[in-house]
Structures are given as C-alpha cells and as structure tokens.
C-alpha cells in the first residue's frame, strides 16, 4: 500500500517539520506499533530508531493518532483466556430493524458485554443482525449473565443463538500495514 494515498497519513503530523521521507517513517512506526511497545526504559526512542524518526516525532504521532481515533486504546492488551476467562460466547440476535440501535446501545451499556456490533443479515441462512460478546470463567456463568441481560432489558421476544468458542486457532492484534 502506498501510504501517501491515504488521507489520514497526509494529515497525520502537520506540526512535525516533515522531512522528505516522513511518510515512510510513519509507515514503519505503524508496523512496529502493531507488534507492541518495546519493553525497554525508552520505548519511544527505540521505536524512533527502528522507524527512522526522532523520539519526539514518535510521541507526537502516537498522541495525534489517539486524538484522531486511529488508536482507540493504548495500554495493556490482556489475554483473558490465560487469566481464567475460559468461556466466551458470541451471542447473535435477530432484532427488528427499527429496534436494532436501541437494543445495541442497551447491550453496550451492560457490564458483561465486551463487544457489540451491528452486521448485515445474510438471508435465511444467517438472519442475525446484532452481535455481542460475553466473557466468563465458565459456561454456566456466561449463560446466567446472558439470562440477566435478557430479563433485565426485556429482550425475551428477540430470537438469538449462543455460539460458545471451543478452540482459539489464532488471537492477535490487527496487522493492517504490510509486514512482508
């Protein structure tokens, strides 16, 4: 991908005195950041060294990406499974179209729901348009949380299916920039 074609990169760092090669440096920074922050006393200096930018440029870029929403969260990324959250259920719902926004917002405000997305239906084969994720230490706990979610919010009339995960074949952060 040629990053100079992507508008958010052109606008990314207006207040850095841009060298001719700044765009490439930012691309390298993105690629390094997707792999995680180095665990060394000066991690931004290390990233700077790896991407050909200055430490200041790296910190400014990260702050701006946070402000712009390109980085939605910057912190420790926990593997809940290792900690003992052994059960995770994707619960899918067939919500009437005119209620999907209300129901989605209600679910999103519930503590046990960690993700909530609207997605398109795909015919009779896949009638569900709302997805939420519930994590718990075991299957029974997840099911009882789901039951509370339904009864507390009056969702009994909405058809749903519960898809527990049985095996994780891969779990890692998104890598949008080419790493080849």
């Amino acid at each position, binding site marked *: 991908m040629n990053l100079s074609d992507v508008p958010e990169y052109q606008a990314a760092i207006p207040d850095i005195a841009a060298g001719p090669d700044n765009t490439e440096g930012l691309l390298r920074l993105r690629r390094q950041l*997707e792999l995680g922050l180095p665990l060394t006393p000066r991690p931004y200096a290390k990233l700077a060294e790896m991407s050909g930018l200055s430490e200041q440029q790296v910190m400014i870029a990260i702050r701006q990406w946070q402000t712009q929403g390109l980085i939605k969260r910057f912190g420790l*990324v926990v593997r809940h499974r290792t900690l003992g959250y052994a059960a995770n259920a994707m619960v899918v719902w067939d919500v009437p179209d005119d209620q999907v926004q209300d129901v989605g917002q209600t679910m999103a405000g519930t503590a046990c729901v960690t993700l909530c997305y609207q997605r398109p239906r795909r015919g009779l084969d896949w009638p569900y348009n709302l997805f939420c994720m519930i994590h718990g230490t075991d299957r029974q706990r997840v099911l009882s949380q789901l039951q509370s979610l339904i009864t507390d919010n009056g969702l009994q009339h909405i058809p749903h299916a519960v898809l527990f995960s049985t095996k994780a074949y891969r779990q890692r952060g998104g890598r949008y920039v080419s790493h080849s």
Partner: protein
Amino acid sequence: MRLDATDQQLINFFQRDLPVCERPYEAMSRQLGIAEDELIQRLQSLQDNQVLSRVGPVFEHSQAGASLLAAVAAPHEQLDLVAARINRAPGVNHNYAREHTYNLWFVMTAPDEETLDERLDELEHQLRLPILRLPMVQAYHIDLSFEIDWEALP
C-alpha cells in the same frame, strides 16, 4: 493463572491511557510504588506467560484499514485442517471454532477494501467453501478492555 496484587493493579490501571512520555514505564512504576526495572520485568513476564498479548495500541479497524468478520461451515472432521488453511491466508488475526453449523469464525484484515475482497475470494476458492461475510455496520461498544473480576477467577 493467579497473579499477585501488584500485577493485578498493573492491569487494572493500565489497560488504557499508557503514558506517552520519554520514560513511560518509570511514570507507571511511580503510580504503583515500585521501581522502573521491576515494572518492566513484570510486563515482560506477563507477556512471556501469555497474560498480555502486547503492550500498545489497539487500532480502530474502520480507520486502520479494512476488516470483516467471516465464517465457514467446515465438515466436522476437517475442522483443524480448514482452520490451518484459514490461518495461512494473509491478514487473518482471529480464528475461533464455535458451536454452530458455521463452526469457524475469523477476522480478515487488509490495507483496503479491494484487497480484502481479493483475499476472501482467493480463500473461498482454496477452501471450496462459501464464506459468510459480515462487515461491521455499526459499533455500539468497541472497547476491548473490561474490568477484571479477580475474585471470580479460578
């Protein structure tokens, strides 16, 4: 896996808003009342023990590039085989077996929509299975962090 009180606090405090300053780990260590090198060591061992997948940013999919949730209905006895083929495709960052006729669920990412479609078409061709393509229409809750109930853990 049981963590000690300091590790628990470290995770409670810093799932978001990691400091962006010259010595972020030093700033974090002051909040926890430990030394910088101890904090770095704790992060390293949490990472080595697979408690943390990484320290760093979670990019917003819709701005970072293209991605979608996809599913296939694999014949039960070929589940592992099909999952391995999916993992070999470029851009796959999550891949779970789930209890449903659609029994493999994965997230495919790409720098742009066109590449994403090409990758899915190619994978569909390789697997000889139709891929259910479910792009996000609207996010109501997209924050991947949640408060950990340490007491409830085994």
